[in-house]
């Protein structure tokens, strides 16, 4: 004689119990306070607005921009075949950096030259000035006088 169990299998029991529990959770979720549901509504509306912007931004990026010239003519800034800007636009973005580097080099050169000039002026004033008597007692100065001139 074959005996069959009257109890459902574990998976069925698990699913049925889960369904009952989820039913309770659904009731609790439906009863969230008004302020929370309002904040969720605002968040949802913001998200939808962002999605709209994102969709509008996507096709705008692949089209060419048209700028009217000051003389009444139209200058068309077309993009390259791969959506890349043309070479002269890329160069234009590098140009300010090149100008900055050149300016720094010039400033460095001018500053260095000014320092050299100032040092030379001090040396010439010192050499043209009268020698103080105390200098003759300085052993370093005596050594300098005895050394052969270059």
């Amino acid at each position, binding site marked *: 004689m074959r005996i069959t169990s009257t109890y459902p299998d574990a998976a069925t029991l698990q699913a049925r119990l889960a369904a009952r529990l989820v039913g309770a959770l659904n009731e609790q979720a439906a009863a969230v306070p008004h302020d929370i*549901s309002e904040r*969720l509504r605002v968040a949802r509306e913001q998200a939808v607005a962002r999605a709209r912007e994102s969709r509008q931004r996507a096709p705008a990026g692949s089209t060419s921009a048209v700028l009217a010239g000051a003389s009444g003519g139209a200058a068309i800034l077309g993009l390259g075949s791969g959506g890349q800007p043309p070479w002269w636009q890329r160069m234009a973005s590098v140009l300010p950096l090149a100008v900055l580097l050149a300016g720094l080099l010039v400033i460095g050169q001018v500053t260095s030259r000014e320092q050299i000039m100032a040092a030379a002026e001090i040396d010439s004033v010192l050499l043209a000035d009268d020698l103080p008597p105390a200098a003759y007692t300085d052993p370093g100065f005596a050594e300098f006088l005895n050394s052969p001139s270059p």
Partner: protein
Amino acid sequence: MATDKELTDFLKSVEKRAFKRTAYAVREDDSALDIVQDAMIRLADKYADRPAAEFPMLFQRILSNATMDWFRRQKVRNAVLTNLSDFEGADDDGDFDLLETLTSIDGSLGTESASDTVSRDQILRVIEAEVAALPGRQREAFLLRYWEEFDVAETAAVMGCSEGSVKTHCSRAVHALAKALRTKGITP
């Protein structure tokens, strides 16, 4: 590409469950709202051009990631590490316990009389509290599988684990809930 209406309808259908699910994890309503809003914005920003049918999976994945980001920001390492408790303990409840609890909940929630309204609310709150008290991975698997009605493969994809792990998490979650509810007195 999904339309604004499809996105709105989807978010409207999922937002309250998403809030509850997040609130169970972070245990703060304000933070849960921020996380849900963040997930909505991420979905709209990055995936607005996807078909509406892909939204449920994408959104749940984004929401899980946003919740994890919140935990990282809060440096609540212990809360994340509690997931390890999924591997602890053996299930000593048999199928009969499940049946017992099922019968009990059927009896508690199935038919409502006017005098039982308060008791019913209490039971709902107890169930919610017990779901919130589940270990993180068990709760996530349980809610995705049964609340969001994902199948095992989809749940595994969202959670980034194997299908076997999903089944294990779900089984342990249901058994833990059944045991906890019986302990709370929801028994025949």
